């Protein structure tokens, strides 16, 4: 049965105050549209999990939806800092932001443990680093084989809600991604509820033609939202480019809470949904972000009847 719904309904029904929410994406497929809808619906006290909190989390933190962040790298990639987040961390302005931090590999393995229903995941990292000193969840252990091998373990991370952007999915949520994968698959399997947001909802037959490209099965998906340009200013491989202009602009916008609030008023609270956001930019703007063609070529699965 179809799981296709609107972003308003998906967020309204699945994201609750106090939830741990992961809007993942490693520079690629970052669902800004979902972040904006969460701001618009004025969720509060969220714990935001993500390997690389960037502009969308700075927007959410600046809007006051979050009280804690679980992460491994925070910044405006290629540009600089997250000013809203830093105000809260360095000056509790307007309120504190609790941090729980790992390295990239530690975060990935937390999702892996969550996805695989493991009570812990062992990794070879954190040796002689201060990170475990400030995060008691990162625990040293010795290999049970008596070979003296030392590892650290991280606990499973099972977000209440994972929001994963992808190029396409069918109505049941069978989801296909190409280009950078990040940990979209792991976070979807680790989460209790999953919202898949796509550039295009396609016929099941499109998915069935290339089953090896399916990254997330409908079996773990609760809602499917079609939101073209839903990653802007990040990108969707083959659909549109990263809008670097905005990443630079955000550096200026976020420097002061006033300019940040004004931006939220104009671009989030002032708009009913992402459709209006897309309209506000206008077709010419989006056309300029479209890449040229680079087709994958086909493979043959063979018909065995």
């Amino acid at each position: 049965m179809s799981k296709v719904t609107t972003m308003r309904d998906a967020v309204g029904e699945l994201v609750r105050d106090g939830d741990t929410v992961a809007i993942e994406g490693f520079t690629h497929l970052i669902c800004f549209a979902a972040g904006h809808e969460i701001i618009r619906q004025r969720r509060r006290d969220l714990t935001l999990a993500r390997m690389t909190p960037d502009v969308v989390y700075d927007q959410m933190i600046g809007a006051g939806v979050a009280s804690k962040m679980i992460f491994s790298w925070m910044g405006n990639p290629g540009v600089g800092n997250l000013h809203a987040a830093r105000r809260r961390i360095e000056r509790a302005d307007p309120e504190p932001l609790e941090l729980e931090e790992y390295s990239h590999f530690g975060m990935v393995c937390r999702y892996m443990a969550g996805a695989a229903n493991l009570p812990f995941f062992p990794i070879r990292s954190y040796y002689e680093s201060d990170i475990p000193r400030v995060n008691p969840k990162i625990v040293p252990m010795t290999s049970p084989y008596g070979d003296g091998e030392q590892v650290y373990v991280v606990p499973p991370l099972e977000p209440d809600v994972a929001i994963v952007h992808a190029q396409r999915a069918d109505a049941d949520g069978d989801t296909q991604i190409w280009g950078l994968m990040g940990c979209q698959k792991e976070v979807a399997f680790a989460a209790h509820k999953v919202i898949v947001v796509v550039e295009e909802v396609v016929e099941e037959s499109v998915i069935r033609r290339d089953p090896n490209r399916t990254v997330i099965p409908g079996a773990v998906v609760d809602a499917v939202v079609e939101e073209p340009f839903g990653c802007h200013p990040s990108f969707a491989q083959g659909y549109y480019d990263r809008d670097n202009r905005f990443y630079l602009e955000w550096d200026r916008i976020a420097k002061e809470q006033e300019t940040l609030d004004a931006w939220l008023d104009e671009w989030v609270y002032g708009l009913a949904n992402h459709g209006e956001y897309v309209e506000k930019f206008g077709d010419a703007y989006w056309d300029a972000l479209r890449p040229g063609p680079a087709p994958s070529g086909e493979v043959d699965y063979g018909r065995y009847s």
Partner: protein
Amino acid sequence: MSAEGSDLGYSKSELMIAASARLLGGVSNCFVGVGLPNIVCNLAQRTVAPELQLVYESGVFGARPERLPLSIGDPTLATGSTAVTSMFELFAFYLQAGLIDVAFLGGAQIDRFGNLNTTVIGDYEHPKVRLPGSGGACEIAIHARQILVIMRQARRSFVDRLDFRTSPGHSGDPAHDVARGWHGSGPTSVVTDLATYGFEGSTGEMTLRTLHPGVSIDDVRASMGWEPSIAGDLGETPAPSGTELRLIREELDPGGVYTT
């Protein structure tokens, strides 16, 4: 499963298939094996469980086989499926994560608590018969929410004591079974060529539920290694319906490979 006729207008295999398929009512996904279980799942999809998703141990989801698969890795399973995944993801993200509702298991030996042996007959170090081994059965028995067992019944297979416990069933102590905290509730039904069995909640012991038409309690006793507990409301296994037989014979196994 070897072919055999019958004067009841259907074969024992057809009865076993129909009886098993009815156990899948309302189930959302199922770990499919080859042979009978494959036909059982496909029959259930067309009767009691239209939403049933077939998951194959080989890593295929939502298969739409265009022919009767010869193995769980038949190429017809991958073509046109909704997802193909690595073995690691299949076992870690699906099975171990508790996403599998029902799985079919069988074995060379089963005991009264549904423990299964697919490893050896005789001593492990000096086996009389070396069997295939666990495959995925050990973790399937632990993580699939329900285990359905389909087996031919005989004294050498329904044994008082297993030669080797490959896959755990009930422990005999229901309190312990709950304390294990597994996703799986273990074997819930056993369908043989003679009868169907459930497992009693108070003991976790296999209990005779229905006798197939023409089969007596003595026939059953004669073909198992322990004195079976018998349900108070012991009944007869319903014969396959005309629709079930038509589906099996015309759509699912027209060649009669598994069912005649």
